[in-house]
Each structure stands twice: as structure tokens, then as C-alpha cells.
């Protein structure tokens, strides 16, 4: 394993790849790039699955992808590999290609990572950093790497402590960097279903009856539970309703119930189905767990600030802190 990586050499290799690719056929090749996507993963993260996820994202969000694989240990090691990913849209002759760079960095070489990444970032386009390593976020070098990104994507569900993760993401948000949490992204379809309940004017007019938000989370869904409660609390506050939130550990995945007076609306997951209950009526919809591809597809589609998430994050951090101090 080498110990140095020259960004100039990588850029030269990339340029060479385009020249070679252009010679392959009469229709030439189209370079597509709308962002730099930096993916940081541990060495034991499933490389094949991650590669497939990135490949699936490219047609919709073409990017220069820099995949950084972290190797734990004190030995200083840094290496690189450059390649392209190409596809032909259905019915078209021209190939579309995206650039991919793979870097391997040991813990001891992490300090060198920002200086390698910086020249590899495509000018004038957003930089999205998807950090799949909870371990890295606790290391001092992480702040410098994260500082390169216009948007940082984390997954608090993979952190040891959900409440600590929420607090850390909230403080990162307060520092001004755009941050996303895949634990929140997983809730989009849930939230959408709850929102649809209140598209019905009759139910909307009964919102003022709600006095309690009850969220129960199962293992692996704690941060999602805090987010769901915080989001519902904020939405109700916008409607002039002050409701009390209760977030408790239970079995299964996650469920939420808004109740008060004679009104009750709730969502709960049963296997691959989402059950929506309003008073005594319930409706069931097919909703498999979203894959990493679907989650990242949603996040890459949002490159501006997400005010609803930011507000939810801040409320969730407050709820989690006050719950811990009770």
C-alpha cells in the first residue's frame, strides 16, 4: 500500500480516461456531472452493495464520485484508483459517463485527506459528503473534511447514542453547514401519509382537539422517534395547537398517535405495510423499508436548505435533552 496520493496524477488519469473513451465509438461519449459526491465508508462496509447504490444514483444525479474507504489502524496508508461509470439511456446511441475515484485511507493518513479531496472537487458545483462511518464523525479530522461539503449526509440510526447524534447534528447545523440525517429521510413517506390524513377538511378541522403526541420506537429507530414527535409538535404549533409529546421505547419499529377529546389519528408499521388509523377507520398501504439508494436519491434532490428538517432537528434536540434530564 502506498503512502501518498497526488491529486494532479488523478486528474491526469481522469483526463486520459475521457480521451480513451472518446475513441471507442463513432457516437462519442457525453460527460455528465452535476455535483461532487464524496462517500466515506469503513473498509468492512459492503463494497459491492455500496457500488451498486452509487451506480444506481448516477443516471439521476450524475456526479464525480469520490469513494473514500477507511482502514482502521496506525499504519499510514493512502492509495487511489480511477475509473468511469458509463451507461446508455434507453434508445440512444451515445454513452453517458461519470467519473469515479476510489481512495483508501488509514486512520493515520486521515489528516492528509482534505488536501487530497480539495483539488478533486469539481469547480462551481455542490459537494455532497455522505459519511457512512459513525466512528469518523467522532474523530478530530472529520470537521475539516466536513468543511469541504455544501451538504453533509449522516445517519443517526447508525450512531451508538441517538440523542447524542441528534445533538451533534443540531450543533453542526447551528454552525451553518447544510446537514441531512437519513433517519429523518426514512420518515418522508410516513410523514406524507399523516399529512394526507389532514388533507381531509373534516379531520383538519378537528386538529384543535389533539392534546397528546405519543411516539413509540423500537430498536434502531430512536432518532426517528424523536424526529417524528418533534415534527408533529411543530406542525401542530403552526396550527395553534399545543400538544404534549411523549417518546418512549417499545417493540417493533415506530408508531405515532395524535389524540385528544374524541379524535385519534395514528400510523404504525406492520411488516412492509403502513397502517393509518383515524378514529375507528384504518387504511393500509404497501411501504417497504427504503433502501440507501432511495434515501440518497431523495437527499441528492435537495440541494438547498430544508427549513422543516432544520426546525425539527432543533425541536428534537430540545426534546431529547429535556427527556434525558427528567
Amino acid at each position, binding site marked *: 500500500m502506498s503512502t501518498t496520493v497526488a491529486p494532479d496524477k488523478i486528474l491526469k488519469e481522469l483526463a486520459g480516461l475521457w480521451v480513451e473513451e472518446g475513441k471507442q465509438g463513432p457516437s462519442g461519449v457525453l460527460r455528465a456531472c452535476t455535483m461532487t459526491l464524496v462517500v466515506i465508508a469503513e473498509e468492512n462496509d459492503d463494497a459491492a452493495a455500496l457500488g451498486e447504490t452509487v451506480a444506481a444514483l448516477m443516471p439521476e444525479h450524475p456526479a464525480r464520485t469520490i469513494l473514500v474507504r477507511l482502514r482502521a489502524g496506525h499504519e499510514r496508508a493512502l492509495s487511489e484508483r480511477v475509473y468511469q461509470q458509463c451507461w446508455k439511456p434507453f434508445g440512444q446511441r451515445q454513452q453517458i459517463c461519470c467519473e469515479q475515484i476510489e481512495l483508501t485511507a488509514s486512520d493515520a493518513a486521515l489528516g492528509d485527506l482534505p488536501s487530497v479531496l480539495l483539488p478533486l472537487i469539481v469547480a462551481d458545483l455542490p459537494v455532497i459528503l455522505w459519511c457512512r462511518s459513525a466512528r469518523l464523525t467522532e474523530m478530530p479530522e472529520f470537521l475539516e473534511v466536513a468543511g469541504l461539503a455544501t451538504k453533509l449526509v449522516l445517519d443517526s440510526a447508525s450512531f451508538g447514542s441517538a440523542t447524542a447524534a441528534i445533538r451533534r447534528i443540531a450543533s453542526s447545523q447551528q454552525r451553518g453547514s447544510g446537514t441531512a440525517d437519513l433517519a429523518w429521510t426514512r420518515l418522508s413517506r410516513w410523514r*406524507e401519509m399523516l399529512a394526507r390524513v389532514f388533507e381531509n377538511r373534516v379531520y383538519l378541522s378537528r386538529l384543535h382537539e389533539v392534546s397528546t403526541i405519543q411516539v413509540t420506537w423500537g430498536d434502531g429507530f430512536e432518532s426517528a422517534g424523536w424526529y417524528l414527535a418533534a415534527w408533529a409538535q411543530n406542525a401542530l404549533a403552526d396550527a395553534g395547537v399545543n400538544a404534549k409529546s411523549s417518546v418512549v421505547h417499545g417493540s417493533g419499529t415506530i408508531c405515532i398517535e395524535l389524540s385528544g377529546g374524541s379524535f385519534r389519528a395514528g400510523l404504525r408499521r406492520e411488516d412492509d405495510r403502513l397502517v393509518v388509523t383515524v378514529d375507528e377507520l384504518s387504511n393500509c398501504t404497501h411501504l417497504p423499508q427504503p433502501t440507501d439508494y432511495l434515501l440518497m436519491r431523495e437527499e441528492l434532490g435537495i440541494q438547498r436548505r430544508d427549513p422543516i428538517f432544520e426546525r425539527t432537528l432543533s425541536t428534537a434536540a430540545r426534546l431529547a435533552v429535556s427527556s434525558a434530564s427528567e
Partner: protein
Amino acid sequence: MPNDNPFQDPLRFERQAPECAVVIFGANGDLTKRKLIPALYRLAYDRRLAAGFAVIGTSRTPMSDDQFREKMREAVEKFSEDTKLDEEVWGAFARGLFYIAGDVKDPAMYKALGEKLAQVEKERHTGGNVLFYLSTQPSQYATISAGIGAAGIGKGSGWRRLVVEKPFGHDMASARELSDQLHQVFDESEVYRIDHYLGKETVQNILAFRFGNGIFEPLWNRRYVDHVQITGAESIGVEGRGAYYQEVGALDDMIQNHLLQVMATVAMEPSASFRATSVRDERSKLLRSIRPWKPEEILQNTVPGQYGPARIGGEDVPAFRQEPGVDPATQRDTYAALTLFCDNWRWAGVPFYIRTGKRLAKRVTEIAIQFKSAPLHLFNQDGGEGGLNLLILRIQPEEGISLKFLSKRPGSGMTLRPVSMDFNYGTSFGERSPSAYETLLLDAIIGDPTLYTRQDMVEASWAVVEPIQNVWRSVKFDFPNYASGSWGPAAADEMLARRGHEWRRP
């Protein structure tokens, strides 16, 4: 209590349609099978429709609900270009399909429709909302609207909307008359005049391109733009619709609605917001600023054409006059080219050349904005194109935007050649674009008329087209005047040459 749903998150949630029943008149027709039902099915497939959704089809052909469902299933299988039929989704969608046979002139049909709507509202929870879609002969629009009104189903517990397909009249007087007849039952805000061109992603992208970017708008005026060419060309002939086309012609079929709307989108002023009223006000203002030609100016500034026979790719293709159902001596235009000017500060003196036709060299719809040349030519130029700067907004078949400019040719010496910088909509955004009908149907169900045509816009278009129509109908042209597979009559080239311009060959 606020009326808005506080749980909505427009950044992440898809636009959802409220519960409603869609009533399609002409449900056994081509448009229903080719466009409407495949578009509605795709919306169901994408979970964009509410659970409380139903379609009631009606036409004269006797059919049961099940037979209608079977026909519509075949239509989805045949005409859904990029959506495979999913049994589960289709099953749920088909359960909401109903059919009533009847004549649109028969009051009993509307009575039966009223009863069916009540039944569907109860069983399918459609919330009392009804979207009427007129996919029939235009001559039946007024009859149907009156029938709906007389049966009392034009009003109800939920909203009512009426979608009408073009043509909106065949001249100014008939457009006004139709409008007056519709307004006897529906308010103008409930009338949705569909122009499927405006539903195309790339036509909407013109607005994004112009008003979402800061760099183009300063150039978008008479100071920098030399002229604009709008082309809506088809390579096919009338394809069995000879009798219809003989009544309508290229000018009314394409320019009066689609291409003038495209021109309005290209040339309108920025609207204060993206709300329907603001955008439509600006489009309407632009259409009203188009200078109608005086009768004596028309033959200098417009060119009608009709295709003759030719051999294309080893196949003999007939002249328009040889098509089935077409009068062998017809004077109807299958090609139309116009020079138009906008009398406003932004565009004064800039020619807008618009052309459309059947059996032209290729199928292409695009807008080419030709910028003025550099004031001084310092370099040798390959191709002698005189400092050509051209912005091309491609609408079909390959949606995208190209900018042509000059670049130094590699090697010694300063010889320049034109190069093209291309943005391809399909490759930069790999996700599927919704069809125009998906977009427009969803808009109508949601109640967003931004991409629909308003009565004042229809009248402004007729004010431009009607004088041309009158002169063309009073003159006997020497038709056919262009060969199938060509780029149209020589007179159209001469029309541009008089102003020192020439048509692009897209």
C-alpha cells in the same frame, strides 16, 4: 383555525391530487385511449392520485363497466410508453372505472350521469369533486356544457372543473360564442382549456431557463437578439385524419394555439410570481402585443403551403390532395409560415418567424434565438457564418438547450469555427419526465391553471390569426407548393430572405 394543512412538506412530498371523479366525454375515442387513461394510470402508479378517485367514461357505444375496463386495460398496455402494467396497481385503478352509454344530446344521459356520480361519490369517497373532460368533437362542447347545466350536475358539494381540448372556436366570433356558452354553466375560473404543448417539461423549462438564471435575461431583448425562429415540424402526413385536417389546416391546428403559446412563453415579461394569474397575465400581455397584419401586408409576411407527392426513403408518399377524405382541389394549408412582430419595448423590430407543417424533412419542435453578430469580425471563420451566436431551445424529440458560438480551430493561425455546447434534458436528469397529459391532468385536479389557456389568451391569438385566415381563404394558391420530405415552400425562404435571414435546417 388556518385552512392550510400544517403537516405538508412541499420540498419532500409529491404533489397529491385531492379525491375526485373524472368524467370523460368521448371515452371510446382515440385521445382517451392514447393519452388520458395512460396518463391517469401512470399517476395512479406513482401514487399521485387519492384513494377516493374514479373515472366515469361516457360515449355512444354501448358497453358495460367491465368491458370499458378491459378496453382501457388494452389502451394502457398499448399506449403507455414507459410504464408496464402492474396487476396490483391496475386492479385498484380499474375498480374506479365506470361507464355510461348515451348520446350527448339526450337529457337522459345526463340524468344517468348524475345518478352515477352520486353512487360513485358514496362508494369511492370522491368528496363531491368532479372534473369534466370533453374529449369529443368541438361542435359538441356547447351541447355537453348545457346538458351538464340542465341536469344540475354543474354544481355540487365539491368543486367542478371543465377541461376542453382545442380548437377553441374556428375564428374570433366562434371562440367568443363557445366561451359564452360554457360560461352559462361554468365560471371562467372553472374552465381549463388544455394546450398539451404547455404541459411539456421543456416548454416549462423555458420559464426556468429564462427566469431562474440571471445571465440570459439581460440579453433577451431587441438590443442583442437579431431574430427568433420557432419551428413545429412533422414528418408524417395527415395519417387518416384527412377529412378533419381539410377543415382545420396548419395555421389553425398548430399556430393559433400551440406555437403562439410557445412564442408567448419565450417572449413574455417576467411575472411577479409563479402564481397562475401572474404567469397567464404576462402570456396574455405578450399575445396582445403581437401586431396583427393589415390585409394588404399579409401575403408578404405569411406563406401557406400544401404538400405534394414525393418519394421518401424508397417509398412513394401521396400529396395532401390524394389523401383519403380530402377534396382533390382543396386549398387548405398543410404548412404555414408567419413573420410576426411584438409591439413592445423589449421586442420592437425583432422578427419572430414561426413555421409548421406536415410532411416536412423531420419531426422537430424548437425555438432558435439568433443573437446579433459581433460588431467587428477580427478572425477568419470556417463556414462563413458571420459570428453566429445561436441559442436553441429544443422541445422535441430530444429535449435540451444548445448554445452555438465560435471557437478557435486547433492548430496554427486564428481560424474560428462554430461549436455547440449542449445540455440534454434526458441525460442530465435521468429521471423520467411526466407526459404532458400527466402534468396537465394533475394540475386540473389540483386546481392549478398556470399551464392552461385563458379566454383572453384565446381571443388574443385569434386576433393575430383571423386576418391571415381571411386573406388565405380569399386567394387561390398554386398548391401543392412543396414536396413531401422538404423544408416547405420556396416562398417561405423568400419571406425570410427579404429581411436578410434564412431558415435553419434543424
